[in-house]
């Protein structure tokens, strides 16, 4: 997604990327990053938690005004409401690449 942000930005439209794994910044170089500690699949907040979704959206949009130079990373202060161990985000079965890696390692 960071690569897409670069293309859109290069076309003249400012971008903010709301990102869980914000350390990808070193690999990609995104114009503006809003880093968030939310589980995969629910970057803006949980199901029917309109309040968190609205606050995250506002905070991410604010980064357009906060970022003064390319590569700015803003750490958003949101805390997910469940412990990681209790947070289910995985697909029902491992993705093809993960299954392939696991199979190789078990040999």
């Amino acid at each position, binding site marked *: 997604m960071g690569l897409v942000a670069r293309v859109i930005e290069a076309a003249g439209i400012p971008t903010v*990327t709301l990102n*869980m794994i914000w350390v990808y910044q*070193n690999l990609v170089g995104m114009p503006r990053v809003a880093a968030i500690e939310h589980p995969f699949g629910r970057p803006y907040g949980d199901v029917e938690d*309109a309040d968190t979704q609205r606050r995250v959206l506002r905070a991410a949009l604010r980064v357009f005004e906060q970022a003064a130079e390319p590569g700015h990373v803003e750490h958003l202060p949101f805390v997910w409401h469940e412990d990681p161990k209790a947070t289910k985000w995985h697909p029902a079965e491992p993705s093809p690449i993960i299954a392939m890696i696991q199979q190789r390692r078990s040999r």
Partner: protein
Amino acid sequence: MLPRMHEVDPWRFAGGFLKKVLSARIPDEPAYDPIPWAPVRRPLAEAKVALLSTAGLSMKGDTPFDMDFERRHPTRGDASWRRLTANARSESIEANHLHIDTGYILRDLNVALPLDRLRELVAEGAVGAIAESHYSIMGYQGSDTTELVGVSAPAIAEAMKSEEVDLALLAPV
């Protein structure tokens, strides 16, 4: 240097295995070409905003993202893109992505594409306008990002420009 108020832990939900697999690809120091920069031209309250998700979203009736391709080629992913309407809801979309539980998105689209929330911000005057179209790609591209970067992303940028979008907010899942 003062300590940061809050630094996001990028691996909090990843688990050890995924952290190991993903972090192996990430350099310790910046290793990218110069970052493109388009200055923000108007305040948020006057800006037209478009959203983009990597959740593999498509409108029902449109061609869904191709998951069989990735099952046949685990190091590759569907690199195409889809246009979504501003009134899209959970009931009107499909979500195809083999790396997350898409069930949450199918219950409430706003967890990944908060169109309802954006409309509320427009209604209260915090945001100027919601774009007619919003966008999705499927985030897992594996070893080859050529088509995503060379074909899909420029097409999305053109579509945004044709609707005079001022700001694009992207969210990987």
